[in-house]
């Protein structure tokens, strides 16, 4: 969906994500103390900043290319073969059986080798032995063969080379099940390993087998997954127990490790799953059809009635003429039934209750559809807005930055703030998009939460709008300047300030939503009062105090905090009293 646009921005998106959630003040991964400081993060910022800086580049996953995967797989195989003193293909069989977990192989093997051998089909000695025979009967074709035309795996069941080759070939064509191939004898579980495959399979079959083996290493391993982006061949190894599931692949696709959908913070995986299912499912279309159309009584095709009279004519080839109200044939409509435009059969039927059920279903479907459409439209428009912003970011990097650098006599390194602003916009659009899925699933009865959520979301929308506006519109005048503009430095300060404020706002928004807006409950009446007050006045405040930080909003409910903060004139950020310059935009007090 967005992979095409993402592609050419590979490096930018990546660099963007690296320092995205790891601003000096807050750490993305640190949600432990987040619930305390969700909104009043200001005070702790200084104290914590060192710790967070130290952790900021900690990455909890590794992207693996094909050669990396093969290398790792090879290391595991030789490692196990060495430690257990078993042949290479036996090590493969074992590892595959234990989902490529070296430690599980070791544990199982050293606690009960016999049991493990039996389970995976690694026989210690043959079950049938016929040392002195010169001729054997193949167990598949039932022909007699010379000893040199007969092969068997560890069990000793004799099959001729042709039948072995056919057996192996059939199983490889069948799919990855060939990795657990056993001796053809139905009573025998002896494993058929890669050595046998390499001896008897054709070249393309061997390649296919080796590909299955590689795939198994990623797919059966709990610590690794393929990047879900279409056409991407990288895999990701994820460190167990780490917080935050967002992974940024080298192909520039950002996805959630847990559910492998695109990155979706602050919404949890379950909600995303339901939302995606809802979007893709025909159920919504069905609801729409149910609400706005009726099936043609003859050919059963759904028909939408936009306006006009009740005399319907189905599209060719059906061409059935019927009455929209009663769905009866139009030919029945005449003087007898009360005239063409007063179909009394409908009224009569409705009184008898014949249409009630169908009508009520239509009505209910219509309501639920309206609600869904509300959220879906906003979700989708933020999605397309993000795509547009990505394209603009690209345009900025490839074209405009150059022009601007000439026009304003600034080295490009001094214009980094513009790129950062656009990267911020792209990320914010992503977050904002998912808040609509969040909103859709927020329980109706949680009024306080819902109000607070809608307030936060409204502020986020308007704050981002301000940043987007500044980066898009205000920047343009500087592109056309003949000579360097004296206002450019002001613009820089403003845009950088807005970027930083918006980043902070969204980071806090993400955390607040991830905590399930727990503040609303834990702060009881206080925040309810605050949120309902704010909720009520959010329209007004959007006009005036746009993009106010959440921190300053919260100050309204706990007056005591007021004295310890000052609000920046330029960006409205609530700074600790001790600070002399704004933490966000460096504006002097």
């Amino acid at each position, binding site marked *: 969906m967005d992979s095409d646009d993402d592609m050419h921005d590979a490096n930018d998106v990546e660099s963007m994500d690296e320092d995205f959630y790891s601003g000096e003040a807050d750490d993305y991964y640190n949600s432990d103390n987040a619930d305390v400081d969700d909104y009043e993060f200001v005070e702790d910022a200084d104290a914590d900043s060192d710790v967070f800086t130290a952790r900021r580049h900690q990455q909890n996953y590794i992207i693996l290319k094909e050669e990396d995967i093969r290398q790792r797989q090879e290391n595991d195989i030789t490692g196990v073969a060495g430690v257990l003193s078993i042949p290479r293909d036996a090590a493969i069989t074992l590892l595959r059986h234990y989902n490529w977990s070296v430690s599980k192989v070791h544990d199982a093997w050293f606690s009960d080798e016999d049991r493990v051998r039996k389970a995976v089909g690694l026989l210690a000695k043959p079950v049938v032995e016929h040392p002195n025979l010169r001729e054997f009967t193949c167990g*598949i*074709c*039932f*022909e007699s063969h010379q000893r040199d035309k007969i092969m068997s795996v560890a069990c000793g069941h004799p099959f001729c080379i*042709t039948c072995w080759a*056919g057996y192996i070939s*059939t199983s490889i064509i069948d799919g990855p099940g060939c990795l657990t191939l056993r001796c*053809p*004898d*139905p009573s025998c579980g002896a494993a058929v390993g890669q050595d046998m495959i390499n001896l008897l399979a054709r070249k393309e079959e061997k390649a296919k087998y080796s590909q299955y083996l590689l795939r198994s290493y990623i797919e059966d391993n709990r610590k690794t997954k393929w990047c879900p982006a279409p056409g991407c061949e990288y895999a990701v190894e994820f460190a167990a127990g780490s917080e935050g599931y967002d992974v940024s692949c080298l192909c520039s696709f950002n996805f959630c490790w847990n559910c492998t959908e695109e990155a979706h913070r602050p919404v949890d995986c379950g909600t995303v799953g339901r939302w995606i299912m809802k979007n893709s499912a025909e159920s919504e279309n069905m609801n729409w059809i149910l609400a706005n159309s009726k099936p043609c009584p003859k050919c059963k095709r759904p028909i939408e009635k936009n306006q006009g009279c009740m005399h319907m004519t189905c599209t060719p080839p059906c061409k059935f003429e019927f009455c929209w109200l009663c769905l009866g044939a139009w030919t029945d409509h005449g003087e007898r039934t009360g005239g063409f435009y007063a179909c009394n059969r409908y009224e009569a039927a409705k009184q008898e209750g014949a249409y009630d059920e169908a009508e009520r279903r239509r009505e209910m479907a219509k309501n639920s559809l309206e609600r869904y459409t509300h959220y879906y439209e906003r979700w989708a428009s933020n999605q397309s807005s993000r795509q547009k912003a990505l394209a603009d970011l690209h345009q900025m990097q490839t074209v405009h930055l150059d022009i601007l650098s000439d026009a304003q006599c600034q080295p490009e390194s001094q214009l980094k703030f513009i790129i950062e602003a656009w990267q911020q916009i792209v990320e914010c659009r992503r977050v904002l998009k998912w808040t609509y899925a969040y909103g859709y699933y927020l329980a109706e009865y949680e009024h306080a939460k819902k109000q607070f959520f809608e307030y936060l979301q409204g502020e986020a929308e308007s704050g981002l709008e301000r940043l987007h506006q500044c980066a898009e519109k205000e920047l343009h005048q500087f592109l056309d300047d003949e000579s360097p503009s004296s206002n450019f430095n002001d613009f820089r300060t403003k845009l950088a300030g807005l970027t930083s404020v918006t980043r902070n706002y969204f980071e806090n928004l993400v955390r607040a939503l991830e905590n399930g807006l727990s503040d609303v409950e834990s702060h009881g009446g206080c925040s309810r009062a605050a949120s309902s007050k704010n909720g009520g006045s959010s329209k007004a405040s959007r006009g005036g105090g746009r993009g106010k930080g959440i921190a300053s909003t919260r100050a309204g409910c706990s007056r005591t905090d007021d004295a310890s903060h000052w609000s920046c004139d330029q960006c409205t950020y609530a700074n600790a009293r001790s600070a002399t310059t704004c933490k966000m935009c460096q504006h002097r007090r």
Partner: protein
Amino acid sequence: MTSSSATSRKALSKIASNRLQKELVEWQVNPPVGFKHKVTDNLQRWVIEVNGAPGTLYANETYQLQVDFPEHYPMEAPQVIFLPPAPLHPHIYSNGHICLDILYDSWSPAMTVSSVCISILSMLSSSTVKQRPEDNDRYVKNCRNGRSPKETRWWFHDDKV
């Protein structure tokens, strides 16, 4: 079985043909107890009579199995169905399809018609109730147009019967 699926079937490969000849000879010398091969000159389709084992729910009953062999038999499993009327059994559908793993996923080229027959008889004999599978109607409806049971994704959830 519709004529279309019968004609679309490819002739037996040489290997398959040889192997079936051998199986047939072996069958004539040593037929599995309770089964009778109805001799035809069609090597690719065997019709086999099954007699319910004495002392079981199917004692004194006779059914007919139809075994069709694919081009690459025995690498590929034969298609085995009951000709109507199919026995009432929790794993046998009214269209004659049999839910038995060795006929599908667990087939091995080292198995034979004879060993398949014995498995089917043992499946019949261990049944404690004469009834159709729970999803019989749905399944049979899905199998119209002469679909082969080998195209079904079987779910072998019960190995008791």
